[in-house]
């Protein structure tokens, strides 16, 4: 793949967002309408303890990617006390299927010995994506024998009537240096469903994408598209410690392809996108999202500081 960067298209600090959110527009997720596109993203509020809560908001763009509207009320409430998504939703992966608008929730909740855990939930929209309501308080995909924690980052597509989900699961929490909070390692998994509600992990604990850096590589936010007969996933990957400020260890975009949705070949050379010196995405590329519109393939993604100052767009150069 080869991408032509169009540039940053949304900066959250220019807008008034619901839930007291000031910064961050992370993990853009697209729902295409006839005359515009709606881009859901995760933005942040600080709570009384000084910690962040991630909320979902959206921005609507015309088809030349100018902002025409920003959500003025919450798209989905955070989960109830003690639920999997009590402290944040990141991302909300949205798609139309079987006459419904599905919103897959990457839900986060806080722990004591480590910072967080996560599971994947489901909400539906009955007002064209303005708001979403959960089908229940609990998750549709959660931890299991070989996927012990941090099940998140859902991305769902329907092929030949079967729902496919690419997601991540945690494998390890590790203390890399004395006194530092534990950091996590996560890998990409795959699950299938007939109805989008009842999911089966294709193989509990199977990592579908091989490591490139080392065992400690963290892989996040897979996104998938079929071009011709070949399936491609893009994702972001990094070292699992000292990755926040050290550019050489931070997020970059990885790529893998498959012709059968089972076996994936890692092929980062053909990710086709890298950082741009001096630009908003000079240090880091993360949280990719692939979508099609009017016959073209696009990629949205975050740049420096994990999307604190918004997201950008690239177009597939065919």
């Amino acid at each position: 793949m080869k991408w032509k960067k169009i540039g940053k298209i949304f900066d959250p600090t220019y807008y008034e967002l619901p839930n007291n959110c000031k910064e961050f527009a992370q993990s853009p997720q697209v729902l295409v309408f006839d005359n515009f596109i709606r881009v859901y993203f995760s933005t942040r509020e600080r709570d009384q303890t000084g910690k962040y809560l991630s909320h979902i908001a959206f921005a609507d763009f015309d088809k030349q990617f100018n902002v025409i509207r920003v959500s003025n009320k919450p798209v989905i409430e955070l989960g109830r006390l003690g639920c999997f998504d009590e402290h944040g939703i990141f991302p909300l992966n949205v798609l139309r299927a079987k006459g419904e608008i599905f919103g897959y929730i990457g839900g986060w909740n806080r722990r004591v010995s480590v910072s967080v855990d996560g599971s994947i939930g489901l909400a539906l929209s009955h007002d064209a994506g303005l708001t979403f309501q959960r089908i229940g308080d609990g998750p549709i995909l959660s931890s299991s024998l070989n996927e012990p924690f941090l099940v998140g980052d859902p991305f769902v597509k329907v092929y030949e009537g079967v729902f496919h989900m690419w997601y991540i699961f945690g494998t390890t929490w590790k203390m890399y240096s004395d006194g530092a909070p534990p950091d996590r390692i996560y890998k990409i998994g795959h699950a299938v469903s007939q109805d989008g509600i009842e999911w089966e992990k294709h193989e509990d604990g199977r990592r579908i994408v091989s490591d490139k850096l080392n065992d400690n590589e963290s892989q996040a936010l897979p996104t998938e598209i079929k071009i011709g007969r070949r399936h491609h996933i893009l994702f972001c990957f990094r070292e699992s410690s000292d990755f926040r400020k050290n550019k050489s260890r931070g997020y970059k975009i990885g790529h893998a392809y498959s012709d059968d949705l089972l076996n994936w070949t890692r092929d980062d050379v053909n990710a086709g996108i890298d950082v741009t010196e001096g630009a908003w995405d000079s240090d880091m590329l993360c949280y990719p999202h692939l979508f099609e519109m009017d016959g073209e393939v696009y990629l949205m993604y975050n740049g420096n500081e994990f999307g604190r100052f918004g997201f950008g767009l690239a177009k597939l150069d065919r």
Partner: protein
Amino acid sequence: MFKWKKLGRIFNPLEVKDKPWLKEFAQAPATLVFDNFVRVYFSCRPERDASGQYVSYTGYVDLSRHNLLKVVGLSEKPIMELGGLGTFDEFGTYPTSVVRNGKETIAYYGGWTRCESVPYNVAIGMAISRDDGVSFTKQGSGPVLSFSVDEPMTVSGPKIRRFNNQWYMWYVAGNKWRLADGRPESIFKIRMATSIDGVSWKKMNVNLIESVLEEDECQASPDVIFFQNKYHMFFSYKYSSNFRNTDRGYRIGYASSDELIHWVRDDSKAGIDISSGDEWDNQSIAYPHVFELDGKIYMMYLGNEVGRFGFGLAVLEDYSI
């Protein structure tokens, strides 16, 4: 109607010396029968940690098969370690239920983690022993039964049984945390799942037992036995708030079923209650475990403060439909 005769307390953790991991509590007894002894698994705790909180281990005590009031052995160490950093069972393995499967013994247990907004969360783990139940190896670092749409939290209290070539797990699932005087209290109900291999489980996704005290009645320890052509479930239940050291604490309830799915609750048939006077079980009675041994039916149960002072034994004296 069941009529139980209490035989007295059979294990008091406060009398155990020199086992730092077994200082307080002996909760949720579960039996495994051997030729000459009955192994009783229970969960116990070291002293509170630096943050003032408990962890929970599972150990066992062996009783003479010919005299269940006589202790003949005690586990040297916990039957399994706590989980690693960030795992579901990092802070506790309680309760544990065991079943034989050929030469193996399989344990299902509640694994405890600590949360920020609520005190804890629980999911069910699985471990296998190949040394007659002395030590168990976890089947993964994650749970075998976890959270789902209708079971959002505190999936705990497994009781494993096999009937008619099928595996059955009765357990409890939380449906919410309710704030009582600013303190979150878990509300949990009895649920059931089935499996053909003990690994892959299908949840029934219904509350099995109607609530009688209040909508938020908490139900625990659903222990099922087949006896005289019927399935009998003994469980414990309590009010959702203000239940510590009052008459709102645990009592033992009863339900029956012909086919393991539909259960008719009738606590008046349970036939066992708190003791009077200054007995160890004069305030509450909880976590029944019912088993058959050498032609008799027995019940083990916890007394006051949910096992802080150990567990006791009762024998079935009389049963009539």
